[in-house]
């Protein structure tokens, strides 16, 4: 059996001093939450269809591109050219860049000719996002309906939480169970119908806790173009972008604190 630490040790008299935390927050508003709103010094990973590096909406902030590819029986993460096979990942990247313009972006392409929405490819990409990408916010506009992946993805969501990586996950647009959007450790997002990127709502009745701009959103698409699109897929990167602002402004906070700040600064917060 793996050697486990004594869980109470961190709270012993001699150790408590190392539990350094920020002080009481005081009034929590967007000005405080976002700081300069730049997302500077932060990495956001986008697990999707790839990101077109040269798209004006990405602003040259794509710093790394990898793809999940099949090697025999296993999925491997390999370095790849910064391209998008659909346009969807570029759309998400553009939304995040618009909200956190100085954040670095990492693209993890899990879609492609040889992995038709394969859950294994998705889980492999997510693992890499959590452990190797250096990102502290991961945008997941994709999800898996596979019951077989319920357990593995649940473990990954916990792994992210324990590693201080915030997963922002779009709920499926169809009311089916999809993972990891239904796990408590992630920030789960669906679209609202207010035509404003600056509006989001907190829903105190989980599993989908946040509603963000996802209807008729003007987004970046392939070939330097733009399109108007709809889907929860486009709501998630809005929350990811705001989370990036918050994490950049408050580097020592943890995923549940980001969630609390997002809830406290939502449009329906009183």
């Amino acid at each position, binding site marked *: 059996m793996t050697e486990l630490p004594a869980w109470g040790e961190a709270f012993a008299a001699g150790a408590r001093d190392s539990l350094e935390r920020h002080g009481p927050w005081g009034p929590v508003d967007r000005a405080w939450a976002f700081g300069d709103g730049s997302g500077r010094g932060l990495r956001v990973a986008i697990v999707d269809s790839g990101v077109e590096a040269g798209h004006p909406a990405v602003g040259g902030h794509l710093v790394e591109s990898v793809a999940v590819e099949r090697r025999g029986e296993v999925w491997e993460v390999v370095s790849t050219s910064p391209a998008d096979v659909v346009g*969807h990942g570029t759309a998400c990247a553009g939304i995040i860049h618009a909200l956190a313009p100085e954040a670095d972006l990492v693209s993890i392409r899990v879609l492609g000719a040889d992995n*038709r929405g394969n859950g294994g490819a998705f889980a492999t990409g997510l693992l890499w996002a959590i452990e190797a990408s250096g990102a502290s916010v991961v945008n997941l506009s994709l999800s898996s309906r596979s019951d077989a992946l319920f357990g593995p993805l649940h473990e990954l969501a916990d792994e992210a939480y324990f590693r201080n990586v915030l997963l922002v996950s779009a709920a499926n647009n*169809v*009311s*089916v169970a999809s993972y990891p959007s239904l796990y408590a450790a992630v920030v789960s997002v669906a679209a609202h119908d207010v035509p404003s990127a600056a509006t989001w709502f907190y829903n105190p009745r989980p599993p989908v806790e946040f509603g963000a701009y996802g209807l*008729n959103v003007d987004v970046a698409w392939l070939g330097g*173009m733009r399109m108007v699109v709809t889907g929860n897929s486009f709501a998630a990167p809005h929350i990811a972008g705001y989370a990036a602002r918050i994490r950049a402004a408050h580097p020592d906070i943890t995923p549940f604190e980001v969630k609390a700040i997002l809830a406290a600064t939502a449009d329906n917060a009183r």
Partner: protein
Amino acid sequence: MSEPREAVVLHALEEVAARAAAAGRLEPPAGEAVLRSVVEAAVALFDAQAVSIALPDGEADRLVIRVAAGPAGQGAVGLSFNASEGIAGYVYTTGQPLAVADVATDPRFDRRTAETTGYVPRSILAVPLLGEEGTIGVLEVLDRRGDGATGLRDLDVASLFARQAVVALRASHIERDAAELLRLTLARLAADPDADRASIDDAVAAVAAGLDEDDGRLWALADAVARARRAAPDQVALVIEILDALARRGSRPAPRSFRR
């Protein structure tokens, strides 16, 4: 020496099965008629230029438009496209619906569509056909009434049509597989001169298991039910009760609660 009577009977059955299968191909199965009515109803509801359903094309990594309706849908049946690219490809590979207005802003999309159908849509609403084992196709609504802007309910409504299509597809799948089951079973028996009742059971079960490779556990279930028919009446009643409960559960919307 005359041929054993059983062999003659089996041969006759085989001939019947062959004709039944051929007839099934000549006269499109009921499932496809339902599929057509699904796209026709969707055209009427959305006041759309076209509504189509695309399904995977066997081994190739392509989707083929199987049914289409609406003024711009007529020429679309039979068109195929790459299953991992474009808007329909994204919906197919991810199981996530996607609505796009102003498609025309992507010049590559225009050219490809115009070349194949002669029709260039302004807006697309694409939803997945979600089967038990994953996404089994894509339903697309082109140029619905209005300015192309999508409402919060549009994806939900389109998804309801997609769900109807899934039910129809399952029905046509069963018809096709039933014919296949009969054919393969008879082929096995024809190859086995010592066949008895027990080997008939084994042969049917084996063939049913083979069909299950691309249809979840449906045929294994059907096989079990068929064998249960020979059980005591109260046990049969229990089986029927269980199946009835399952059927009622299956006809409800997918539960939103956690499920393993």
